[in-house]
């Protein structure tokens, strides 16, 4: 084990200019953002960046010595893919520090057109092994790959040991239980999915039904969950609903829960992870500020204290308030979760 590993970059979400500033002000090394269209996988109304706000955000981050990544992480659809090409052109013109791409056809476009532009392989590329990552490196010189949230820490290490590409892992945020880029549940129910439209369980298909006994949450008419009086109601994300299987009604796929790797930070640093990503471009600036501040403190402490590192109760408390369903998990990094 090397004596001192560099600390992983803390990569934080910016769904808006105030969120970007909150991330920068609270210790993010890097922020990632998307444009206001379906080229980005968090295509929510009222969020994301146009040319003016992107310019201002990039200026703000660079002034503070931080980096900005542009996520163009849906798959370019059909015959006319000029929208995706324009997004890449725009990113290059804006001077972002890297573009995060899922579609290998778009990687080729970006590499040919902008030989000096740094490219990252998006989590939506579903690259779960080093052969897949090394293919993208050989062909398009990608510099970093973001791993889907399905590998154990040992498996992450195995990837790192067999590639020169920097590896970024998810550290905190809503837990996507399926392999990103390989989940079509949303389009099965609604016609729109992260790969095709940049959305999962889109809000325009959500309907709340106030019954006498219970509150029903429907997605395109399909009952995703029902809440009794007094029971907290979550957003009806398809995979986190309660369903019936062989007579049992339960969270058949996954409970509403958030990933939180704080307790594993020393190991994450030791195996040479290059960056830790926080999920949540759809979240408020206050959320981004709180999560960024907490993880900054924890990461710095883990860097200083190494194996003596212990998670402070105050951090856990701060994050648990922000976690989905107030529950947190180590997810796939931890074998028992599987």
């Amino acid at each position, binding site marked *: 084990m090397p004596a001192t590993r560099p600390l992983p970059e803390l990569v934080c979400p910016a769904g808006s200019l105030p969120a970007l500033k909150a991330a920068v002000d609270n210790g993010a090394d890097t922020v990632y953002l998307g444009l206001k269209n379906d080229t980005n996988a968090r295509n929510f109304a009222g969020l994301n960046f146009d040319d003016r706000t992107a310019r201002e955000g990039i200026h703000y981050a660079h002034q503070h010595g931080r980096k900005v990544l542009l996520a163009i992480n849906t798959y370019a659809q059909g*015959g006319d893919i000029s929208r995706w090409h324009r997004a890449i052109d725009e990113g290059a013109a804006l001077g972002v520090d890297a573009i995060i791409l899922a579609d290998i056809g778009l990687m080729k*476009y970006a590499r040919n057109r902008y030989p000096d532009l740094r490219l990252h392989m998006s989590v939506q590329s579903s690259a779960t092994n080093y052969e897949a990552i090394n*293919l993208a490196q050989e062909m398009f010189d990608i510099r970093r790959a973001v791993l889907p949230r399905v590998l154990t820490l040992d498996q992450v290490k195995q990837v790192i040991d067999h590639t020169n590409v920097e590896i970024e892992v998810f550290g905190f945020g809503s837990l996507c239980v*399926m392999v990103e880029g390989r989940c079509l*549940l949303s389009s*099965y129910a609604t*016609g729109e999915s992260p*790969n095709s439209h940049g959305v999962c369980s889109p809000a325009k298909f959500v309907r709340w039904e106030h019954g006498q006994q219970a509150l029903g949450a429907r997605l395109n008419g399909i009952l995703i969950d029902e809440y009794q009086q007094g029971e907290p109601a979550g957003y009806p994300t398809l995979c986190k609903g309660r369903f019936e*299987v062989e007579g049992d009604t339960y969270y058949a796929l996954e409970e509403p829960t958030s990933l939180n790797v704080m307790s594993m930070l020393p190991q994450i640093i030791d195996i040479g992870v290059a960056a830790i990503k926080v999920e949540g471009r759809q979240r408020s600036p206050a959320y981004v500020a709180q999560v960024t501040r907490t993880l900054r403190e924890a990461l710095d402490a883990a860097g200083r204290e190494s194996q003596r590192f212990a998670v402070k109760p105050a951090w856990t408390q701060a994050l648990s308030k922000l976690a989905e369903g107030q529950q947190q998990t180590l997810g796939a990094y931890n074998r028992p979760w599987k």
Partner: protein
Amino acid sequence: MKTLQLTLGPVLFYWSRDDILRFYSEAADWPLETIYLGEAVCSRRQQLRGQDWISLGRELAQNGRQVVLSSQALIESESDLRRLRKLVENGELQLEANDLGAARLARQQGQPFVAGHHLNIYNADTLALMHSLGARRWIPPVEMDRDTLSAVLGQAAFNGVQIETELFAWGRLPLALSARCFTARHYNLSKDDCQFRCMEHPDGLRLNTREQQAFLTINGIQTMSDGCHSLLPHLADISAMGISALRISPQWQHTANVVSGYRQAIDAITAQQKPAVDLSPYSDSRLVDGYWRGTAGIAAIGETHHAHS
């Protein structure tokens, strides 16, 4: 216009060794051109090992079938990669690459391959790129609608990319993959100690909404549709689009009837007749075709809007 070919996709469920061997000894006589073999879903499902699949493939190939070995879609560990390398290096049978890593290995071997639907090819540029790596056939993402596919194929033809297209035409739709095993979760078991309970559910486990609407199918780490996707009503259009092949995804019962039904329908269309085939008795789920029509995949055949919307 070339006649549509029929293919048999890999068995996506966990069947016993005997059941698999029996299934393929019957399938050897079915009227189809290509058989895909192998474990594409879960690394713990090893009733047949890599070498067994290769041997079975050789036997079927000797009987005049084109045989393709399907790679596991989710490759997480070094042992997954070892199994994948063994498939790629068999020296004889083609590979269906269901992961970019598989595409890389096939390319390194100079082996032409089939680009599986998990490779997420949604446009002509990406299709051309996959073709340049060695893909001779591709399967579009199952969510891709008719018009998008038509646009991709039109653009690919304009660019001079010649590649065969195979559509997922029948069966429960493979919708998602996870690290987590939902079958094991159902039985309160860990994935490492799953006791191979998948085998008790040869067509997967049905997941209903709390209103008893059949919705999804749990198949280990895979989540599938409950609805049985069927492109049967669209064969004339599909044939006119220049599609090469249709994939039948194996199910526990009646697969032979489904194959022969599709064969009859294709023959009718080739003879410029209207096919009169009803396959609904051969599925225990509703037949759906929403994806092809550009709407929610769950939309039943003939349904304009989703029943509940």
